[in-house]
C-alpha cells in the first residue's frame, strides 16, 4: 500500500448517472455517484450484486456494456472527459492508459490465441515498443507475478493453465503497456482461497512496483482491506460512505456498512453423536478413466450438520454425487440408516430416494424456468406422498410458510424471484419430500453476504424443528463456522481429516488444513502482509 504524498488527481468522476435496458424498460443503475482517484492510489469499490460497482468500474474507462448508457456525468481522466470522446478516441486510451482485469479469467481469454500474443496485444497495437522487447518484458512480468516456467508459459493456450495462473497472466496483460490506471473487477472471486492469496499478493506487489493507480471492485470486504488505501461502499447505485481503509474497518459510520461485517458473526454451538445417519466407507469413484475419489470414508451423525470443505477439484461435489447415486462408486459401500444403499440410482427404492434430497449451488439453473412455484414444490409432494388437489395445495402453502414466504408466491415463475427467494424455493422443494438427509452443495456461494445469512439461519431453524441431517459442501470457511457441527477436510480426492468443528479449526492442524485456514482473508488490513511474512519464514 502506498501513501499519497503527491496527491495528484488522476481520475475524477462527477455525478455519474447510468441507465440499463432490461425487461423492456430502462432502469437506473447508477444514480449520481462521484469518485476521485489519485495517482498511485488503490480505491476499493464494494457492494452487493446489483449495487452498480461493476458498471461504475467500466464507466471509469468511459465504457458501458451493450444495453447501458451514460445519462449524464463527467469522467475526467488526465484532464480529458472520457464521456465526451468518440469510440475511436477512447480506443486509444483503452488497453494502454487504462486497462481492465475481469472476474473470470477463464472466460476472458480468447481460446484461439496463445497467452503471450494476448498479453502483449494492447501494447503491440499501440506500438509502444518492438514486439521482441514486449515479449521479454512480458516474461519479466510473468516472473514477478511468480508464474511457473515464466519463460515458456506464454506459448501455451488458455485451456492449458490453471485459473489462478490465468488470473495472474491477465494482470500481466493489464500491466504490459504500463497503464496509469487498472480496473480490477472481482479478480479473485472465482478462485479458491488458497489460490486467492497467491493472486492477491502478486497483484499487490506489481501494482506497488509500478506505482499504478487502481480501482479494485469486490463484494468481499476482507479482500478489499488487503488491497485498498480507500474504500467506497455502494448500494442500489448510490454511495453509502467512503473513507480510508483502516478508518472504515474500525469505525464504519453507516448501518448498512456495519451489516456487511456482521454476517460473519453467525455462530452455532457444536454437538455430535455416534448414531450415524449415513456412513460411506472406503469409496473410490472415477469419471471415465480419471479417478477422482480415493478411499473416502465419512460418517454423518443423525440430526447434525457435517461440512465438507476443500478447494475446487478436491472431490467434495463428487462425494455428493456418489451419495445420491448419480455417480456409482467403483469401490466401497454406503450405509444409510443401517441399510446398505445400492450404488446405482435405478436400483434404489422410491423410499430411499425420498429420504435423501439435494440442493444445488445455482438456484437459477436448478429450477425449470417454465414452471410456477406451485408446480415446483407440488411435484415432489405428489410424487412421493401421492397427495393431490386441495390437500396438496395446503401442503405447498405450509412449506412456503416454513421458508418464510407466503401463498402470494404460488403462481410466480422462477424469473420473477430474487436470488435468495429462488434458493428458498429450492429448499422447500427438498423439504417437500420430507427427507432425513439433505445435501447442500455450495448453496450460498452464488448469493450476497446478507442473503447468505438469511439462508443459513433458515437452514438452522429447519434443522431444529424437523431434525433433518445436513451435509454442507462449501469452500467458504466463514459459512462452515456458522453452520457446522463436524468438519471434513478434503484435498485431491482424499479425506485429510474429520472431526468436531472446534477440533478442526484449532491447532494443531495437518499441513493442508493449516494452509486452507490461514488463507481465509481476515478483516485486518495487515493480514496479507503478516501472512506472507509468516509463510516466507
Amino acid at each position, binding site marked *: 500500500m502506498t501513501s499519497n504524498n503527491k496527491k495528484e488527481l488522476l481520475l475524477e468522476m462527477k455525478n455519474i448517472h447510468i441507465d440499463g435496458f432490461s425487461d423492456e424498460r430502462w432502469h437506473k443503475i447508477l444514480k449520481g455517484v462521484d469518485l476521485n482517484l489519485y495517482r498511485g492510489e488503490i480505491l476499493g469499490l464494494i457492494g452487493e450484486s446489483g449495487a452498480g460497482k461493476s458498471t461504475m468500474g467500466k464507466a471509469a474507462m468511459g465504457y458501458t456494456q451493450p444495453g447501458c448508457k451514460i445519462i449524464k456525468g463527467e469522467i475526467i481522466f488526465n484532464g480529458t472527459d472520457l464521456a465526451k470522446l468518440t469510440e475511436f478516441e477512447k480506443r486509444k486510451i483503452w488497453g494502454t492508459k487504462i486497462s481492465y482485469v475481469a472476474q473470470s479469467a477463464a472466460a*476472458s481469454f480468447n481460446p484461439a490465441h496463445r497467452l503471450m500474443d494476448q498479453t502483449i496485444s494492447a501494447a503491440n497495437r499501440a506500438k509502444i515498443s518492438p514486439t521482441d522487447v514486449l515479449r521479454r518484458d512480458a516474461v519479466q512480468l510473468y516472473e514477478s507475478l511468480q508464474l511457473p516456467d515464466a519463460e515458456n508459459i506464454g506459448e501455451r493456450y488458455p485451456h492449458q493453465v490453471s485459473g489462478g495462473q490465468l488470473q495472474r497472466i491477465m494482470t500481466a496483460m493489464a500491466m504490459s503497456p504500463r497503464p496509469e490506471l487498472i480496473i480490477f473487477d472481482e479478480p479473485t472471486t472465482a478462485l479458491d482461497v488458497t489460490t486467492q492469496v497467491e493472486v492477491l499478493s502478486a497483484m499487490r506487489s506489481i501494482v506497488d512496483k509500478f506505482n499504478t493507480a487502481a480501482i479494485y471492485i469486490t463484494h468481499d470486504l476482507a479482500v478489499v482491506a488487503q488491497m485498498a488505501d480507500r474504500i467506497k461502499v455502494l448500494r442500489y447505485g448510490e454511495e453509502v460512505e467512503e473513507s480510508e481503509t483502516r478508518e472504515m474497518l474500525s469505525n464504519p459510520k453507516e448501518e448498512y456498512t456495519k451489516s456487511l461485517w456482521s454476517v460473519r458473526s453467525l455462530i452455532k454451538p457444536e454437538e455430535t453423536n455416534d448414531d450415524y445417519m449415513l456412513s460411506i466407507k472406503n469409496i473410490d469413484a472415477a469419471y471415465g478413466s480419471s479417478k477422482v475419489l480415493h478411499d473416502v470414508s465419512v460418517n454423518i451423525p443423525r440430526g447434525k450438520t457435517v461440512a465438507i470443505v476443500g478447494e475446487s477439484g478436491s472431490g467434495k461435489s463428487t462425494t455428493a454425487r456418489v451419495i445420491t447415486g448419480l455417480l456409482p462408486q467403483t469401490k466401497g459401500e454406503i450405509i444409510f440408516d443401517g441399510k446398505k444403499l445400492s450404488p446405482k440410482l435405478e436400483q434404489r427404492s422410491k423410499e430411499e430416494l425420498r429420504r435423501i434430497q439435494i440442493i444445488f449451488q445455482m438456484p437459477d439453473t436448478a429450477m425449470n424456468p417454465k414452471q410456477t412455484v406451485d408446480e415446483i414444490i407440488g411435484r415432489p409432494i405428489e410424487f412421493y406422498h401421492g397427495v393431490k388437489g386441495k390437500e396438496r395445495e395446503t401442503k405447498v402453502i405450509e412449506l412456503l410458510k416454513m421458508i418464510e414466504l407466503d401463498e402470494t408466491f404460488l403462481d410466480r415463475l422462477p424469473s420473477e424471484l430474487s436470488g435468495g427467494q429462488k434458493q428458498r424455493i429450492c429448499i422447500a422443494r427438498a423439504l417437500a419430500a420430507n427427507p432425513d438427509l439433505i445435501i447442500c452443495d455450495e448453496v450460498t456461494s452464488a448469493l450476497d453476504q446478507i442473503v447468505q445469512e438469511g439462508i443459513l439461519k433458515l437452514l438452522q431453524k429447519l434443522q431444529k424443528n424437523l431434525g433433518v441431517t445436513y451435509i454442507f459442501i462449501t469452500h467458504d470457511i466463514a459459512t462452515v463456522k456458522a453452520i457446522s457441527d463436524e468438519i471434513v477436510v478434503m484435498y485431491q480426492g482424499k479425506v485429510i481429516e474429520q472431526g468436531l468443528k472446534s477440533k478442526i479449526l484449532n491447532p494443531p492442524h495437518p499441513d493442508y488444513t493449516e494452509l486452507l485456514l490461514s488463507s481465509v482473508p481476515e478483516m485486518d488490513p495487515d493480514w496479507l502482509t503478516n501472512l506472507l511474512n509468516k509463510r516466507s519464514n
Partner: protein
Amino acid sequence: MQGDQGDRSRLVVELIIPRLKNTLFLTGVSALVAIPLALLLGISAALYRNSVYDRSATGFSLVTVSSPEFFTGYIFILLLATLFPVFPTIANVNEDTSLIDRFYLTALPVFTLTLVTMGHMMRMTRSAIINILSSEYIEMAKLSGATRYEVIVKHALPNAWAPIAQVITINLAYMLIGSVVVEFVFNYQGIGRLMVGSVYNRDIPVVQACALIFASTYVILNLLADLIGIISNPRLLYPK
C-alpha cells in the same frame, strides 16, 4: 442367338470420367465464387450488424435460399440470355472446348449455383460470429482497445471456423449433387444428367457408380469439416 455383352466396367468408367470432370469444373468455379463472397458478406454483415446493409443482405439471402435453383436458373436465362443476350442459354461443352469458352458457357449455371448456396453460407457465417460476440473475451478485447475490425476478424472469426466449415462443406456437397437440376436446366453434360439419363435407360451399373460418387462426396466433405473443426480449435489440438 448369342450377343457380346462387352467389357461393362470399362464402359462405365469411360462414361463417367468426362462427365465427372465437367461437374467438378462447374462446382469448383461456383465454389470459388460463392465461398469467398459468402464469407466476405457474412463477416461484413456481422461487423455492421443491424445496419441497413446487414438487413438487406440477410433479407436478400433469405430470398435466394428459398427460391429453387430451376427457378433461379430460368430467371437468369430470361434476364441474361433472352432480354439481354450476354450469355448463352445452353451450356453445351465438349472435350474440345477451350478453358475460356468453358468459363463463358458455364457463366449462368455458375451464377445459379452461387446464388442458391451463398445465402445459407453467409447467414451461418454471420450468426456464428455474432454468437461469439457476446462472449466475455470479446468485451475484454474491446476494453483493451481493439477496433471493430480486429474484434471480428482476430477475436471472433478464429473461434467461429468450426461452424463455418460445417456449413461450407454441406453446401459444397449440395453444389455437386444439386447440380443435377442445374445441369438439366442448362443442358450441361455433367454427371447429374448422366445419372438421370441412366435411370431412364435402366443402366443400373452407371446409376450405382453415380450414387457411390455422390455418397462418398458427402462422407469425405463431412470428414473434412470435422478436421477443420479440430485444427482450428487449440482446445482439441493441444492436450491440457
